[in-house]
């Protein structure tokens, strides 16, 4: 639960799948205090699988979005109404958002048994009173759309709008008080491997009717929402003072307070009504010992304030792909909150995640120390909430904090079997996922999982005596060790042998980068694989080679060395520096991916010099 999806708005409906939408018509009437949104869908069921996918249709609602009217019908293959489904037959699903509980709910239209060739007609209107005057319409869905029409009327309001990337070739017409966006024969969104998340991969029509669109306004809006929770700091101050008792330096105080929030406050997300945006008062969080990201961040902020360390709230989009649309200020784009502390308020060290003079801290992760900011908070723009000075800051990826190191050491027998030890060290978010996955698991479950991890890197290996430990480091780290046997790792004839070595992969297969228009989203990080192998006496010399490729996206390097004792050392390093690579930059990534693929195929070879008679 540490990859937090906690607080703010969700702008997009989930992607529909299968079938074809013959007609999708959305009319949005923006009024000063409310938004009326009418949706019409005509869906053709083309395949038997569509019948299960469309046996119900879900309309997301919450306390501020109510269903005004709704009707649906099944049309037979001749277009005649076979059955009407009035609104009173809709079901209600509670808490359909993320987390432990939210006040979001879903009205479900239950369709009767359907047949291929039939059509569904769904028509509904919602009334929205958004907490922030903004909205969004996904223009591409997981299903083909033959005709799309979106019309926004905003006669009494000033409308900001933007059709986001990628360009879908939509027709946009704007006349006084009316905006129309339309498209025909829109293909379904079918994400390729390593695609961005749905709502940053499809074009969205962003809408806002605030007075002026600026990130400062968004920051001030959040400050306003959080003001109530910040009023009483007596409980948090008391706890903070107790925790820092005897600690003089701001750094020590920061560490003590972060440790408290991470260790004593359990992450649980509950968003009811404005609770989706407004943090729980810190006194309550202290008492119940659980909260979501904004609860934990606000609590930490208040405690820091009590001991003289200033801090700012930071909004971001957490997860694998945290891209926001910089050109369209709106809180709809965020789902997570962390803290920023002015670097000059504490004594920062070189490894600290400091950007533009701020140290960033995510209190929702219960492992790691201050220098470690998880990768799910990096490689993205974040909004520093600082009143009228609120602004976006880009926190770059840091590959070295998300690293895997595999050491295989052993001795080759005369018949080419390797016997030795293997050690794998994993740092960063992956280490925490391991710890979570193995917590409480049986030893046999853990042993099997670890054997598979080693087996992926060292093909044909058999492991025994597998052990794993969490190491005490600033970055969360786990270590795995085992005895390993790899039969037939060296093959061939005397004078001419090949030694097969595996390695930890990092880059995607080159084929996944072909014919691609979407960005590639990966995990920035490093991989080091080191083989140290005692080669039997009498074997011919190892052919050494060094290879290296480096560009702005990363690096891959292979070196082979043999010492006087015939001990072979192969080191393969790989580094991916950015988690998101835009289509225009794919060639650089492809070069690295190809170099990795070629290195995978290359063997270590022993060759005796030809003897001339």
């Amino acid at each position, binding site marked *: 639960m540490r990859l937090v999806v906690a607080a703010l708005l969700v702008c997009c409906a989930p992607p529909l799948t299968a079938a074809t939408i013959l007609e999708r018509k959305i009319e949005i009437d923006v009024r000063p205090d409310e938004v009326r949104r009418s949706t019409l869908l005509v869906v053709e069921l083309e395949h038997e699988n569509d019948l299960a996918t469309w046996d*119900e249709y879900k309309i997301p609602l919450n306390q501020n979005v109510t269903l005004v009217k709704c009707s649906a019908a099944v049309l037979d293959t001749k277009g005649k109404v076979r059955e009407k489904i009035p609104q009173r037959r809709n079901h209600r699903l509670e808490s359909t958002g993320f987390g*432990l509980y939210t006040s979001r709910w879903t009205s479900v239209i239950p369709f009767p048994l359907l047949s291929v060739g039939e059509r569904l007609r769904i028509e509904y209107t919602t009334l929205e009173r958004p907490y922030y005057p903004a909205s969004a319409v996904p223009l591409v869905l997981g299903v083909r759309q033959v005709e799309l029409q979106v019309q926004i009327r905003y006669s009494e309001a000033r409308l900001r709008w933007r059709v986001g990337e990628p360009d879908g070739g939509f027709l946009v017409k704007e006349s006084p008080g009316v905006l129309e966006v339309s498209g025909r024969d829109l293909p379904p969104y079918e994400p390729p491997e390593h695609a961005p998340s749905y709502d940053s991969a499809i074009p969205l029509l962003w809408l806002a009717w605030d007075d002026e669109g600026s990130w400062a306004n968004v920051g001030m809006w959040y400050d306003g929402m959080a003001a109530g929770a910040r009023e009483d700091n007596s409980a948090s101050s008391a706890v903070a003072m107790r925790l820092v008792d005897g600690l003089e330096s701001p750094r020590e105080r920061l560490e003590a307070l972060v440790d408290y929030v991470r260790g004593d406050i359990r992450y649980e997300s509950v968003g009811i009504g404005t609770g989706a945006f407004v943090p729980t008062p810190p006194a309550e969080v202290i008492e119940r010992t659980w909260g979501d990201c904004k609860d934990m961040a606000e609590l930490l902020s208040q405690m820091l304030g009590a001991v003289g360390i200033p801090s700012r709230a930071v909004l971001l989009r957490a997860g694998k792909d945290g891209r926001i649309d910089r050109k369209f200020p709106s809180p709809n784009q965020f789902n997570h909150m962390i803290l920023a502390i002015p670097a000059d308020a504490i004594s920062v060290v070189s490894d600290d995640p400091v950007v533009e003079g701020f140290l960033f801290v995510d209190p929702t992760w*219960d492992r790691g120390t201050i220098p470690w900011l998880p990768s799910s908070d990096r490689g993205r723009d974040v909004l520093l909430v600082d009143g009228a000075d609120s602004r976006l800051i880009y926190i770059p990826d840091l590959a070295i904090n998300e690293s895997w190191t595999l050491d295989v050491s052993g001795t080759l027998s005369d018949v080419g079997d390797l016997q030795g030890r293997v050690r794998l060290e994993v740092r960063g978010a992956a280490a925490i996922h391991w710890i979570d996955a193995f917590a409480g698991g049986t030893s*046999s*479950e853990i*042993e099997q999982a670890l054997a598979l991890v080693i087996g992926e890197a060292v093909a044909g290996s058999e492991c025994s005596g597998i052990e794993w430990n969490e190491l005490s480091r600033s970055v969360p780290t786990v270590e795995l060790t085992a005895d390993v046997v790899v039969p037939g790792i060296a093959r061939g004839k005397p004078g001419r042998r090949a030694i097969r070595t595996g390695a930890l992969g990092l880059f995607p297969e080159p084929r996944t980068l072909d014919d691609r228009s979407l960005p590639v989203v990966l995990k920035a990080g490093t991989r080091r694989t080191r083989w140290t192998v005692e080669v039997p006496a009498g074997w011919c010399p190892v052919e050494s080679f060094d290879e290296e490729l480096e560009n702005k996206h990363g690096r891959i390097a292979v070196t082979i060395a043999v010492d006087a004792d015939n001990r072979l050392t192969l080191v393969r390093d790989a580094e991916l520096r950015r988690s998101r690579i835009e289509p225009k930059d794919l060639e650089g990534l492809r070069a690295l991916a190809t170099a990795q693929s070629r290195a995978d195929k290359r063997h270590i070879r022993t060759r005796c010099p030809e003897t001339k008679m």
Partner: protein
Amino acid sequence: MMLVVLSLLALVAPTDGLGKRGWQKITGEQRNLTSVSWYPEATAVVLLHRTVITLSDGPGPSKTDVFVRLKILKEEGKSHGTVSIPSSEFLRLKNLDARVVRRDGREVRLPKGAVFKKKYSTYYNFYETTFPMPEVEVGAIVDWRFTLYFDGALRMWEIPLQLDLPTMKREIEFFKPDRFEFKVVFTDPEGNPPEHSVEDVGTGTLAKYVVRNLQPLPNEPFRPAFADLSARVQFVPGAIAFKYAATLEVARSWAGIVARYQRYDYKRFRKEAHAARTLAQKLASELPTSREKAVKLFRFVRDDITSLRSRSVRTARTCREILKDKHGRSIEKALLLQAMLEGVGVSSSLAWTNPRRLGEVNTVVPDLSRIGRVLVVAELEGEPVYLDPYDTNAAFGHLSPDLEGVRCLLLDKEEPTWVNSPQSSPHSSRRTAQIELTLDTDGRVAGHGSLELTGHHAWRRLNWEETADATRNAWREWLAERHPGFAIDELTVEESIDDRRVEVGWKMEQRAEEVLGNETSVTLSAPLGLDLNPFTLDPRKRVTPVHLPFRALQETRVVVSWPTTWEVDVEPSPRRLSNAAGAFATSVTIDPVSRSLTATRHLEVKKREIVRGLAYAELRDLYQTVVDYDAEVLILSRTP
């Protein structure tokens, strides 16, 4: 397994085992516990899980009282301080209460407003009630209790005893009024007997079961269904006695249940079968033999009547309605097919069964919740032919792997009869790959391949994707993953449900940027090779048996040829292993004249169900031998 039939005596109502009298006292042993000797990995441990089922004989509902006491042992265990309880409109949750007792003995009650209820299924009205307990710390004890009220006491109760946490004490109490007859069945695959007692308490009988030190079931690959692995206790309703009427049998025996269904649901369905019989005669009129007629009718019901998902063997519909609506559940399609077969003079019986992944049917315990599919067993040329018209990928006379070798109850015999469905041989489920590759003088490899799937292998891939294009793309992806560095082109896919066959053909060429120039390697096991042995665990540590999906055969033949300027550097060493689990054999033959190499790889999995110990060790050895071979490659290099 142990069976206890409760006697029907006693006058006084049972005491409420978990009433509103406060919390059970925490013992010194519970307070001081810091780890579990028999499960050292535990992050939290259930000290006591007590379930008390009280069936009502009056106007009020029956109920289940649950009390759980949990201890947090490690930081990672604190997440167990958030508790979720499923409920429904049938099982109504009431009287929820909870507390945390911290290390210092201070009690923290569940605050108001901290209980959250989600409705997550509209069809069955399922709810999930969640409460995050406050002030949970390592060493804290978390207690919670609740009551689930329900109507209709005469239902089957199956209570798995193993939880997802180690459990020191699991107590089940079951009270039934005198006039209800219940059979109690305790099952522990490990054979451990429970502590148990049966006593008369007032107006009924109270059965108590206590099991101690239960480990969670490990999640091992290819383990049998949880329902079959877990220790469990079942309370099976047998009958209810009335004061002024005869005793009504509920589920005393499978025969009794079958008779009831035959008498009501199925009789009503068959009553309107005339149209189905007439249609059958029309469809099959041109066909000379009973088998051909049966095939025709089977395909009609399989393909023209849409299958609706449902495990129930009940139906309120009729044969005529199914034909009109053109969709039906498993029982309805089976009944329709049976009626149509009858129309052309083929006799048959319905067969109740359950897919293997959902658990075995117990022939002794009449438990309808363990029936999930209805087959038709037709008599053709004196032989039983098993038909599953629900499965749109099943050919005539063939079952999916999950329905092979499972217990079936034939309903339409004079007496309901148990039989085992047939199992196909390894040779009928075959994957055969043939690859021909040529290395050119520049070191680039290209060629073509074919893959033929039969039997269960084909069944798995039939109708893989919605459209032919999507299926081709899926195969292209499948092949590209197994031939890394190659571009896959000119892909053809042909498939036939009734022949149980899928054929794939393709051309392949090494991508230019992947060519090393002076060295190349070819994986001779691709595309059927195994990267990883799923059975890495030491045989002494494997806890659960292995259930492989089906017995099968793989054959690979790869031919590689090269120009005069290249030579073989290293070729894989041959392997041969045969044991009770299966057989693996490879061969590599080099023809220096034609400069070609032919590699064959044969893998046969002979056993589907493997118990622990030696049999598991043999399976592990088999797969390790396969993985060892598959890791090796053919290396060709340019001649010096």
